[in-house]
């Protein structure tokens, strides 16, 4: 077992991948702390899967390096993958094998006993009666559950999961998130990519946002939210007063009738002072959700620079 405190679970340094002349990943540097859940966000084609394929040694870097627990993913791939679980896509399982044979094969190839298999089958509500049947007879969701069990059953030090909740129903998705947080609490590291921003926000401590193959931001989710402008929604009793937009640090984002949505930069004191002199029916001030932060990085598609720099931003 690797000592989680010894080194970063994953490090990439100026990692790049080009297919012919098309860059799929460009100059990405990040570090995934051990014992954490790290999420990579981005739409299709952003470079998430390429990043994961580079980590797994499926493709060779065009530039830079990637390492898992200090072992280079391309030149020292066997050592890098010694205690690693990877979620293969559900379509990449052997359709002629039974579920049990598939799990046994995965464990044999890992060289470790499947210590978590039974617990995972229970947590994901996998019907035991299906284990003896061929995968070709499984539904997509059931294949996804089996692929997750195959990846996690040996309790690896690092889990690399590409769209892990794809095909899972919401209840099982929540159960799976609990599995991930349990693993994290036991010192394991999880690196996942997902389209589901709410899921990432629920389970990940840190995230990286990639766009067009470039790393736009890497930060703790809490830091990311803290450093973004707060969102204030105010319902005025007698219409939106003049001068609201001139309050220091306040930008009026949207007005509808007597309701205004504001972006508040820095301290909320000046806004509260202004509202104290107005007739206010309702007031809600909150940090932006991860989805709102993510979408800001994708506003004005085609822009070459991030919408707003954040802590941990490497570019």
């Amino acid at each position: 077992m690797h000592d989680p405190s010894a080194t970063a679970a994953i490090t990439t340094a100026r990692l790049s991948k080009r297919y012919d002349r098309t860059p799929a990943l460009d100059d990405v540097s990040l570090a995934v702390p051990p014992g954490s859940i790290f999420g990579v966000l981005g739409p299709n084609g952003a470079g998430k899967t390429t990043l994961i394929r580079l980590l797994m040694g499926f493709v060779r870097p065009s530039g830079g390096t990637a390492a898992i627990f200090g072992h280079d993913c391309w030149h020292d791939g066997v050592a890098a993958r010694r205690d690693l679980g990877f979620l293969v896509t559900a379509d990449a399982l052997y359709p002629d094998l039974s579920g049990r044979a598939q799990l046994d094969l995965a464990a044999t190839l890992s060289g470790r006993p499947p210590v978590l298999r039974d617990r995972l089958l229970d947590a994901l509500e996998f019907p035991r009666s299906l284990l003896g049947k061929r995968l070709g007879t499984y539904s997509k969701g059931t294949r996804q559950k089996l692929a997750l069990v195959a990846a996690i059953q040996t309790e690896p030090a690092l889990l690399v999961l590409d769209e892990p909740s794809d095909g899972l129903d919401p209840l099982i998705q929540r159960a799976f998130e609990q599995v991930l947080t349990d693993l994290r609490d036991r010192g394991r590291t999880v690196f996942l990519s997902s389209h589901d921003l709410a899921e990432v926000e629920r389970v990940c401590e840190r995230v990286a946002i990639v766009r067009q193959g470039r790393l736009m931001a890497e930060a703790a989710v809490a830091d990311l939210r803290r450093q973004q402008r707060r969102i204030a929604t105010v319902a005025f009793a007698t219409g939106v007063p003049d001068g609201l937009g001139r309050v220091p640090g306040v930008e009026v984002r949207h007005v509808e009738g007597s309701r205004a949505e504001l972006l508040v930069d820095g301290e909320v004191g000046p806004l509260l002072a202004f509202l104290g002199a107005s007739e206010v029916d309702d007031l809600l001030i909150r940090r932006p959700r991860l989805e709102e932060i993510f979408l800001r990085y994708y506003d004005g598609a085609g822009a070459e620079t991030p919408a707003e720099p954040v802590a941990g931003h490497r570019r």
Partner: protein
Amino acid sequence: MTPFLRMTGRLLGRGLAGLVGILVGIGLFTAVQAPIVDSIGGAPGLAAMMQRLPPILLALSRTRPEFLAATGLTGFLAIAYTHPLILLLAGAAVVAFAARSLAGEMEQGTIQLTLSRPRSREVAYAARVLGLVVVVALVAVAGPVGTVVGLLAARPAGEFAWAHLLPLAVSTAALVWAIGGLALFGSAVASTAGRVVGWALGLLTVSYFVDTFADVWRVLQPWRPFSLFAYYDPGPVLADGTVNPRHLLVLAVTGLVGVVAGLLVFRRRDLPS
């Protein structure tokens, strides 16, 4: 079972039904030769018929009337081993394995199950080579087994040296190994199994065409040394019990070059997404 043998077993198990079907087909084809030999007047009867064939059809038979007349039953049985159907079945067995086990696994993504574990590409490739060796051995043995069964069942007239079936199997193994090695190289280069099968089918067709018709179409003669089938002549092997060592060497080295070249490509290539 070790992970390496488990990998090999999985690769062989995936196409087992098809492989068994091909082996049975090869065995049946060689088995039926013995029961039919007397119905056409034995080897002399066939030799007499062949003497009336035009050169182009004689070339297709891949034997000579005088050889048949001299070797009798042995010469007749040897014809089965150069029949296009047998060569097609033998080639199909190794090409299908080579195509499915590497390019096919890359195409379907199933190879990720192995390569995401602490297993090197070299080891993953070695499992394919071992699987190929097993398929080659089975294909090489299937024909002689069929011949033995046919001879025991029909007991045709004429002499036959049972021991000569062993060098015949070695000669067949060398040919099939060469085809398999080249197919494995193609499988390491390609990203789909279908493409490998297409390449292999084209190569085998051209190779067979060149060797078969070089005697009647002089323009093909310079190209004959490049045909794999120029180094496979089961008639003399079955009659004399010896394999031309140069033939063995050429086929063995061809297969080995294909296997090594495939490894060099596979260990550095990107897996298709």
